């Protein structure tokens, strides 16, 4: 074996590894964008194999067609999937401590029997609120210390330093619990009935007390039940329960739906993929979207303000199989027949390799001339004229068919207005209201609560300086 052959083998092995790795990576990743890219890598590496086979022109055509084609596929997936960056699913996988490869662990469980789940979501929610209330009563004392602690917590959270989502979440939730108690205590001490805005805030806090991922699913269902209140587009701290004018700038107040009140005004800049996913949810026709099963997860979260880490797959399946099934129905990448598919494909591969290995193949025969493009051109215009014309007609038919199929019907009544928004209006910022990343929502509400607590603390303090109405 001389040097040239060795080089050929090295190139072959590298290209083959890229081809197979790209193909496998497509099925194993959770990020849709990465799936499209790894398929592109697979097909481009195949062009390397073509070069090794001395079919230069085919290699170039392969790259040209597949880069464009896979790009279209990737963009389509990004538009159609609800979580194209895979962030939400990674969070969930980490939180539930799912083992194994990325997408393989997110497969559909077998369908459970029709058993009523013991702790349905509203019950558990009430339970949680009740627990919180009980705790609040217990810790009414020494509020000034708690105030300090809350302030510290808030400082800690504003720094974007901590990278571990678990720890941040726990910090936030602890701070939330502390401040909730504090707020109640302050209000009781002031002997005032809680105002409408106060209760709105409380509602928001109850929602954000739940774990990270459920916040989006919750917002869909809670939007109808929450009271709508009004806020100034320029001064989000101004709130009122009836329409009117802003006391600060005189603009008309705009209605805001209950629990989303704080998320629209300030959103994290780093939320692109979540934005896309949120758009999908807002646009999916069955309102609740794919997160419909998510309230089932509340049963896994503790009500004492700290995250309950016992949210593994096994425990969840045991406690609430139906909820788990519903959750996975929206999230899972692969079907329930994952194992069967794996076995079948392995058998196929083995059979093919066995058949190939049994045949005595011919040795390599040398190509005579390497001016492939000219020869192929000649052939296309002489012997294979019909095939060439047929392919051209096929392409034409494909283009026309694709355009006709994908064209938007103009005359039909606008039944599916949401999905229309989804496919075209990627720019409109007003649809991104409840798409802030899951972390920023409790974070912002937390900030509001601190503001409010400080304000009411000032109001209650004996020195009685400028009492500003924040609510």
């Amino acid at each position, binding site marked *: 074996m001389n040097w040239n052959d060795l080089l*050929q083998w090295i190139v072959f092995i590298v290209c083959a590894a890229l081809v197979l790795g790209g193909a496998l990576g497509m099925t194993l990743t959770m990020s849709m964008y990465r799936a499209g890219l790894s398929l592109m890598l697979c097909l481009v590496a*195949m062009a390397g194999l073509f070069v090794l086979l001395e079919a230069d022109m085919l290699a170039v055509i392969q790259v040209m067609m597949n880069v464009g084609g*896979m790009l279209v596929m990737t963009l389509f997936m990004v538009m159609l999937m609800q979580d194209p960056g895979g962030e939400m699913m990674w969070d969930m996988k980490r939180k539930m401590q799912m083992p194994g490869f990325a997408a393989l662990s997110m497969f559909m469980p077998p369908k459970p029997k029709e058993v009523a789940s013991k702790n349905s979501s509203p019950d558990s929610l009430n339970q949680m609120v009740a627990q919180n209330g009980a705790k609040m009563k217990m810790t009414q004392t020494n509020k000034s210390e708690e105030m300090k602690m809350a302030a510290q917590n808030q400082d800690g959270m504003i720094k974007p330093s901590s990278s571990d989502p678990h720890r941040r979440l726990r910090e936030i939730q602890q701070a939330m619990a502390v401040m909730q108690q504090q707020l109640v205590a302050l209000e009781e001490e002031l002997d005032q009935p809680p105002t409408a805005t106060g209760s709105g805030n409380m509602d928001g806090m109850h929602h954000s007390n739940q774990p990270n991922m459920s916040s989006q699913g919750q917002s869909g269902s809670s939007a109808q039940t929450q009271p709508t209140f009004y806020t100034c587009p320029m001064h989000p701290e101004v709130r009122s329960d009836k329409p009117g004018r802003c006391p600060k700038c005189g603009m008309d107040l705009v209605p805001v739906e209950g629990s989303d009140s704080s998320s629209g005004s300030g959103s994290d800049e780093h939320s692109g993929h979540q934005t896309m996913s949120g758009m999908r949810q807002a646009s999916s026709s069955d309102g609740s979207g794919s997160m419909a099963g998510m309230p089932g997860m509340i049963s896994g979260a503790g009500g004492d303000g700290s995250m309950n880490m016992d949210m593994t797959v096994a425990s969840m399946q045991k406690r609430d199989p139906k909820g788990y099934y519903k959750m996975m129905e929206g999230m899972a990448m692969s079907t329930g027949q994952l194992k069967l598919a794996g076995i079948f494909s392995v058998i196929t*591969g083995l059979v093919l390799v066995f058949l190939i290995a049994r045949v005595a193949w011919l040795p390599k025969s040398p190509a005579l001339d390497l001016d492939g493009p000219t020869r192929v051109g000649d052939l296309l215009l002489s012997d294979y004229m019909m095939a060439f014309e047929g*392919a051209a007609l*096929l392409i034409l038919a494909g283009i026309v068919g694709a355009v006709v199929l*994908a064209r938007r019907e103009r005359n039909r009544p606008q039944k599916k207005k949401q999905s229309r928004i989804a496919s075209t209006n990627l720019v409109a910022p007003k649809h991104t209201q409840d798409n802030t990343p899951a972390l920023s929502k409790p974070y912002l509400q937390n900030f509001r609560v601190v503001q409010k607590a400080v304000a009411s603390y000032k109001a209650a303090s004996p020195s009685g300086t400028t009492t500003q109405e924040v609510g």
Partner: protein
Amino acid sequence: MTGGPGLVAYLIVGAIMFAIGIFAVLSQRGAVMVLMGIEILLNAAILNLVAFWRFVNPNDYGGQVFVIVAMTIGAVEMAIGLAIMLMVYRARGTQNIDKFSEMKE
């Protein structure tokens, strides 16, 4: 084995790729992912075609013409598939193929 990688090497790569494609088609739920799996299947076949052309009869460039036509078919299939997907998505609001199973029941 003398010389560089022979026909068997390319055929085995094609076979493994085909198996992966079958796995992708059978296991994925997103319709676009299934389309991508079909793309892998088609390209495994194309790799075999090119390898056969090179090792069996490299002087007949008709093999390359065949590959070009196959690639064309792949592109057209993808375009039509995506258009159908977009239509279904507009009608249903989802691209999850498990949700399209009412013919079964």
